[in-house]
């Protein structure tokens, strides 16, 4: 031990910026975050009402599009032979990819003991659930006969049939439904202690009853916390491989086929990286305005944005590696169809989509190498929007460009999305934001109990470095205890 003490003196301790800014105690922190759902219904902010109404309007567009789809069938979309998968599958992959960042922030960063996750994990988990809800709708709508969707599930039936378990589309059913379920459980479990504090701070009886019921009688007992933390950790450990498996299975939907541009072995890791890339972009797109509007800069600091920008840069580079490897190995394969596929992407009728994709996902994210750009919040917001668009284009390029040139030129066909394709897409954006605004209004958008824990740890750390008790009146270090 003496040895290590001596070695300690060799280094100097670099003091990092705290993850909770401002002068906060457990009480002020809890009250601040809980105050958002406690705003009485009559005093709902007008800005929220406007944005919620707009989202709700878009949701109505979705219902209109689906109603017309039910009446007419999938013929209202632009899909044809050979482009049997159009915007519906593009949107499916786009949405589910966005969901992945939420799980990643919550689960992987918990396992990696990254304390900066605590202030953004609630929002990103919510984003996951809403995005998965949007994603899951598309394959079902794509079925045409939506009301028979339960045929996808394995259940003993009077037809004596089972799903085709050797098909990746059946894997998808399991992957997406498991993902939705586990994400929801993870989110709800994380909410229990916060429901308890909402219950205990509730300004009126109605809210106390509602939040009280949701809190399941949580009382913060030591033994309960122990099992709770263990369950949470195990969920994180399970969600991490799950999130990788889900987008890998989505990738397998394409890559186990024989379509040039789809059939390539690195699709699973490349899809996972792309999912994280787009998901972090979406988190940034959402959190930058939210933290400004609700004044949460103390909890979602610039350091958080910097971390997320770095993750985007890393995953963006993996995706870019994918584009380059695709080109190189298509050429290296010596296979004329593979080579044509790449050439057609670059110079064919959809070439603008391909080059826009390279610009959005390959070139522009390179700005994130520089701290100057990472710390420029408006620029970061713009970059995140561009990446969202770029990742949508990526799925369009993969799906549509690969399909529209079949092996035989006689089977070639162009694909043009119709107004109903776009209406369904915009409609799911409405669904996403409707759910998101409800969440922002009625639930604590930041994981309060984790933040209390984080505050505790930051006090401890400050105390260790001889700066104890600077963060507020609630903390008075006891000499001799702790450490």
């Amino acid at each position, binding site marked *: *031990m003496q*040895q*290590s003490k001596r*070695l*300690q*003196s*060799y*280094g*100097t*301790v*670099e003091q990092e910026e705290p993850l909770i800014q401002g002068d906060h105690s457990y009480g002020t922190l809890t009250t601040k975050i809980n105050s958002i759902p406690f705003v009485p219904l009559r005093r709902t902010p007008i800005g929220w009402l406007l944005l919620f109404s707009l989202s709700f309007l878009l949701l109505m567009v979705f219902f209109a599009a689906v109603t017309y789809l039910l009446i007419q069938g999938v013929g209202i979309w632009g899909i044809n032979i050979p482009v049997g998968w159009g915007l519906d599958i593009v949107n499916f992959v786009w949405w589910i990819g966005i969901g992945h960042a939420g799980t990643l922030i919550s689960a992987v960063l918990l396992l990696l003991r990254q304390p900066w996750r605590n202030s953004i994990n609630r929002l990103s988990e919510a984003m996951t659930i809403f995005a998965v809800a949007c994603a899951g709708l598309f394959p079902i709508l794509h079925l045409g006969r939506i009301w028979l969707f339960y045929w996808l599930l394995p259940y003993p039936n009077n037809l004596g049939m089972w799903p085709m378990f050797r098909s*990746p589309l059946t894997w998808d059913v399991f992957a997406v439904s498991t993902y939705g379920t586990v994400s929801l459980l993870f989110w709800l479990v994380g909410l229990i202690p916060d429901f308890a504090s909402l219950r205990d701070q509730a300004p009126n009886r109605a809210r106390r009853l509602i939040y009280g019921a949701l809190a399941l009688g949580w009382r913060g007992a030591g033994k309960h916390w122990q099992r709770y933390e263990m369950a949470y950790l195990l969920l994180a450990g399970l969600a991490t*491989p799950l999130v*990788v498996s889900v987008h*890998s299975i989505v990738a*397998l939907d394409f*890559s*186990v*086929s*024989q379509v040039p541009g789809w*059939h*390539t*072995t*690195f*699709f*699973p*890791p490349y899809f996972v990286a792309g999912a994280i890339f787009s998901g972090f972009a979406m988190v940034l797109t959402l959190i930058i305005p939210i933290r400004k509007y609700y004044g949460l800069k103390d909890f979602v600091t610039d350091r958080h944005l910097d971390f997320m920008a770095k993750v985007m840069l890393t995953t963006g*580079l993996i995706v870019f*590696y994918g584009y380059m*490897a*695709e080109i190189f*190995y298509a*050429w*290296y*394969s*010596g*296979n004329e169809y593979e080579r044509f596929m790449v050439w057609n992407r670059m110079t064919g009728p959809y070439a603008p989509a391909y080059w826009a994709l390279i610009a959005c996902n390959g070139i522009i994210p390179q700005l994130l*190498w520089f701290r100057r750009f990472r710390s420029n919040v408006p620029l970061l917001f713009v970059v995140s929007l561009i990446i969202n668009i770029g990742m949508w284009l990526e799925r369009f390029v993969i799906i549509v460009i690969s399909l529209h040139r079949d092996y035989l030129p006689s089977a070639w066909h162009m694909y043009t999305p119709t107004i109903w394709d776009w209406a369904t897409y915009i409609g799911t954006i409405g669904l996403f934001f409707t759910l998101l605004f409800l969440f922002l209004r009625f639930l604590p958008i930041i994981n309060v109990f984790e933040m209390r824990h984080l505050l505790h740890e930051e006090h401890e750390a400050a105390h260790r470095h001889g700066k104890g008790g600077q963060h507020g009146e609630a903390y008075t270090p006891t000499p001799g205890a702790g450490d």
Partner: protein
Amino acid sequence: MSEFENLRPNLGRLQTIGLVVGAVGLAIAVLGAFLNLQTFFQAYLFGYLFWFNLALGCLGLLLVQNVTGGRWGLLIRRMLEAGALTIPLLGLLFVPFLFGLPQLYAWARPEALNDEVYLTKAAYLNQPGYIIRAIIFFAIWSALAIAVTRLSRAQDTASNPAALSRRLRIVSAPGIVLYVITITLASTDWAMSLDFHWFSTIYGMYFMVSQGLTAFTFVIVVLAALSRQRPMAEMVRPPLFADLGTLTFAFVILWTYMSFAQYLIIWSANIAEEVTWYLRRAEGGWEYIAIVLMIFHFAVPFFLLLSRRIKRSAQLLTGVAAGLLIMRLIDLYWLIGPEFHASVLEVNWLAFATLAGIGGLWLAAFAWLLPRRPFLPIRDPALPMVLSGD
């Protein structure tokens, strides 16, 4: 640093043993070359790639550690640096290949010119191109290894070590990009092109993960050996081993993920030009190797490394790591062996000779390089936190 003086004799012994084994192994290998030149080159490629993967894995992990700075990396950084610094030696040991390309690669033989598929990619797959690329690769890797170890060494005496940490980050981040590009191409040139009709886009990533896993398991074994004595014994505490164990676990899963993704996709599409690669590995005894890999490269380490008790114990974790190192050997043999011994599982004695020969020299170089600098990056700003352990 005098604290580490008592570790030197062991490393000195390792150096001597390594030199002797290396000399004997290579002498036997050269003897084998006179008996059968082609078998020699095949065995040499196998032996070479194992140690190459180890050294390049050290470089890759080192670059990642410099950028991310997890506590797992600080206590093993000097070992990774020593491993990465052996790259010039591996460059030297690469020279024999320049004289044996037609022995190894079908595309380097004159008959290839009658092969339609070869002609479409002859602009890339040709002997001058292969050699020029190899020279560029080794130049890049050596430069990276030397640059980051220099900076790390300079930190030991620097007045402002935080500034050097920053410079290490600035050099290492683009270094990772270079590493990824070069390993992708090198794995294509050296191993994938053994069957030049075949291609798989995940191959480069699979190679990188394999390198990372090889380096990790090796470092765990070395660290456990060094930490039997003071002063390392006091610094390397169970939480560190738990971290290394968790990362090994992650790499085992990544390896499985990459291997299975490639297999499932190729198996399912069942395209003639690709699936033959697996068909060769599914007969003549090779299929048993595949089963061994599934059990001992995935299932067994997976369940063992779930246990916190194993991960925290230096002894038990070393056992798992050593087992995994052996599995790395077997996996590598499964990767390239069937290209030489199609349809029948065969291991030539020369493979052991080259493995021991190159390995002996490599270990001697490692043992010589390791004690040439303090065993820990003593002025790294994060070190006190790691040692105080929280």
